[in-house]
């Protein structure tokens, strides 16, 4: 067996495995706050995803919104805030200190072959 074919066979197994074993597990995502910008500004995730904001600026920022629970305390440099999105929809948020900083999270429902059993 050549090394290449071994790797591709292993890769195929790796792709199939999560579908069989962990279909409902969404990958954690990170949003960086830097230069007074949330990046990525728009993030699309699967329902159940935990999103973590990290403030990399020398100035405190917040994650604020009208959604219950989607509201952080002031995040100083390197502070983080996490929120798990369980319900599909579009969630707009902004920095409560610098409201010109805005972002949104698009939460997609889990349908079709990816739907949890």
């Amino acid at each position, binding site marked *: 067996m050549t090394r290449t074919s071994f790797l591709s066979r292993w890769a195929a197994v790796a792709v199939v495995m999560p579908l069989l074993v962990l279909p409902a597990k969404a990958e954690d995502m990170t949003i960086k706050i830097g230069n007074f910008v949330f990046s990525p500004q728009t993030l699309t995730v699967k329902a159940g995803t935990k999103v973590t904001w990290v403030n990399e600026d020398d100035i405190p920022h917040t994650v604020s919104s009208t959604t219950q629970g989607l509201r952080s305390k002031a995040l100083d440099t390197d502070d983080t805030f996490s929120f798990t999105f369980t319900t599909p929809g579009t969630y707009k948020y902004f920095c409560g200190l610098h409201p*010109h900083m*805005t972002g949104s999270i698009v939460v997609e429902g889990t349908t079709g072959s990816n739907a949890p059993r």
Partner: protein
Amino acid sequence: MTLQDDGPSRRKVLECMTWAGTGVLWTVAGGVPASLGIIDEAVAQEAKGFTFLQISDSHMGFDKAANPNVKSTLEEAIARVKAVPGNPAFMIHTGDISHLSKPSEFDDADKIISQAKLDVHYVPGEHDLIDEDRGKLYRERYGRGTKGDGYYSFDANGVHFVGLVNVVDLKGGGLGNLGGEQLAWLESDLRGRSASQPVVVFAHIPLWTVYPEWGWGTDDGAQALGHLKRFGSVTVLNGHIHQVMQKVEGNVTFHTARSTAFPQPAPGTAPSPGPMKVADDKLRTLLGTADITFKQNEQRLAIVDTPLKE
């Protein structure tokens, strides 16, 4: 730059920006504020009249590269305040006393600022209202006798002073915000006053639109200015942008003061408005205070911005 030659009848927009200096000295003369220029110039003119001072953006607790020792620069600013000639009547602090609204930060600010032995009239910046209870600490310490989140007015030497709060309940995608309740209060506060009475309005975020891309403006600032339209002399003092910027529009003089903590870049000259790191020997030329004198028989308040170091 001096604004003394521009009478209020000249409906011309004068804009002037300077990036060096620490203090603003305001003189109220004949009902209208006038700028005296920088402090040495003011001293040379022996400004006689009613003088008060403005300091801003002390950011106690900030310890990043742009200025790891904000206590010592505030101490230097207060030392300059104490050296201002002509017995200033009081001091105005236009917000961001603290960096993170911690009790220890407010304590440090009070310890240093009280050395000036002057009454201080505060308005909050957005950094002063981020404790767990969203401004409880600020209101306990500075809010006595104020309305709402800390707005108020008072009279001194025939001048009407109004302190406004435009850092509360900010809306996503928006700028600074006064809100309907405060605007209604302002309207009633000004009702019945003679249009010849000079008015000084102070708030943290500029009440006029300086640079909306960085949030430097107030969404409903124009409504506040509408209530002030009939007055012959209006002076608007702000902080927040950590640099001196001045504009004269009709009878209204707009002015922002330097920070005592760290400089911020000129609008659009950097990727963000965050703290600007400059060479150590340049820092004190970008921090400072402001002295304002109200001189009789002059048409404008005189504002002198003084840097910690020339």
